């Protein structure tokens, strides 16, 4: 690690004013310290936000608010989450390890950086780490890379599981910027596609803090599933994952949500497949057709063609799990 100064902010105001240009916020530290040890992140100072930000989960009739400092493990045992938003807990439980989930914060999870092997290898060209240097993955090892939404500048995927569930449930990210202005960003607009600016993962303004996540009330609690396919059974990032949620009434689908991890630079929503399912019977044939609609037109890279059929199968299985 490079030397840095360390400050603990007691309040949001102090955190915002303490955040100089070359400073970075630190929450659980599970992603940032890893990147600092590898000299990928090189902040000159750290601002500890662990006490400045809320670690409370509050719910009312409109939905639930999750403070940015709520630890990932807390979300897997909270009664309101388990009763009304179990998809969140299911997704988190497939990620990382119990130790890491105890440390990881909600805000940090959303802002965690890609696991592209070249992003981590400081000797390799990588547009995300070093803009303009090139992308090693496009012609190199792209087995884990994106199959949709990528650009010729970057084919990385967003590694979070929790974010796939948040995307499926139409969450919003509540932020406060340097000038203390609060703003709400819809989850679907929070993370970016790489385009010509692969060094930017998301639309959080410079120096802004995530204060909380809000999820509007929904009727998906009874019929939802998170399916994650990975190289080993546990403690590995997704090759492909699917968050599926159905609102059923008498065998008919009133509303459907489908989102995936491991396929794009951001958690990906399958809107067309969701529209197809709306009003249909919850049958295997319809699930298969929805999966077909999702994968239609996907163009994988040189070494990740397997993800297309894997995704098709994962969508069908996740939808079946919703109704079983």
């Amino acid at each position, binding site marked *: 690690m490079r030397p840095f100064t360390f400050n603990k902010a007691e309040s949001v105001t102090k955190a915002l004013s303490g955040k100089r240009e070359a400073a970075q916020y630190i929450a659980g*530290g*599970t992603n940032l310290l890893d990147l600092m040890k590898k000299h990928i992140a090189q902040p000159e100072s750290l601002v500890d936000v662990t006490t400045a930000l809320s670690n409370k989960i509050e719910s009312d009739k409109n939905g639930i608010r999750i403070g940015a400092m709520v630890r990932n493990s807390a979300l897997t045992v909270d009664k309101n989450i388990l009763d009304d938003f179990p998809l969140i807990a299911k997704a988190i439980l497939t990620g990382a390890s*119990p130790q890491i989930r105890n440390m990881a914060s909600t805000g940090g999870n959303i802002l965690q950086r890609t696991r592209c092997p070249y992003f981590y290898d400081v000797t390799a060209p990588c547009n995300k780490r070093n803009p303009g240097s090139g992308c090693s993955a496009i012609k190199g090892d792209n087995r884990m890379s994106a199959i949709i939404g990528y650009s010729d500048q970057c084919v990385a995927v967003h590694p979070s599981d929790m974010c796939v569930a948040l995307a499926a449930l139409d969450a919003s990210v509540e932020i406060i910027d340097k000038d203390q202005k609060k703003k709400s960003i819809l989850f679907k607009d929070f993370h970016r596609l790489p385009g010509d600016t692969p060094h930017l993962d998301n639309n959080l303004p410079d120096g802004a803090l995530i204060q909380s996540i809000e999820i509007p009330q929904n009727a998906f609690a009874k019929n939802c599933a998170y399916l994650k396919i990975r190289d080993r059974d546990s403690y590995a990032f997704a090759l492909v994952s699917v968050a599926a949620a159905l609102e059923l009434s008498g065998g008919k689908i009133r509303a459907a949500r489908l989102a995936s991890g491991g396929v794009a630079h951001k958690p990906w929503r399958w809107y067309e497949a969701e529209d197809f399912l709306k009003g249909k019977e919850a049958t295997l044939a319809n699930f298969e057709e929805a999966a077909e609609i999702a994968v239609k037109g996907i163009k994988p890279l040189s070494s990740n063609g397997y993800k297309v059929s894997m995704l098709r199968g994962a969508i069908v299985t996740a939808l079946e799990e919703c109704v079983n």
Partner: protein
Amino acid sequence: MSLNQSFSRRFFLKTTSFTAALAFIPKGVRSIYEEVKRFIVPSKDVIPLMVSINKKEYSIKADTRTTLLDLLREDLQLTGTKKGCDHGQCGACTVHIDGERALSCLTLAAMIPGKEITTIEGLSEGDKLHPMQEAFLECDGFQCGYCTPGQIMSAVSCVKEGHTGSVAEIKEFMSGNLCRCGAYNGIVESIQKVAK
């Protein structure tokens, strides 16, 4: 003029003329120089810390970069906690922070004041081993023993959290602790024994 001053003056002259020359050197070389310079001129920041480990208070000074793992091993000679990967991937460095299992290699020492840390050294009461330590001995929950302190700290939490309903559940909730010797069966048995 002291030796020290003349050295830094010479260093200054050298680096500035070098910097001027650098204006004509390609960007890649220049950035390498910037990298090197930051190593030559480190400005490490040492801060005072009050920490509580195994119910004992310590008042120490540490570089801000010190992880809890290095603080334990290098500064406090509590070498029971092991360094495996140093990147959050193996679980060898597992300790309890305020009673919950966490990775000391991804925790900054600067962030633990006010928290209670328990390491493998704090698990036994005098000569009386913790039931989980006894179980590991009885069930052969290790071979070389390197991963064992982390396994035991994690196993104690696994039982406390109630994730011992089945072998599959134990394996899932112990997946953050790798064992190169493959002592997994003994580890699962130890946990089942304590959970009973």
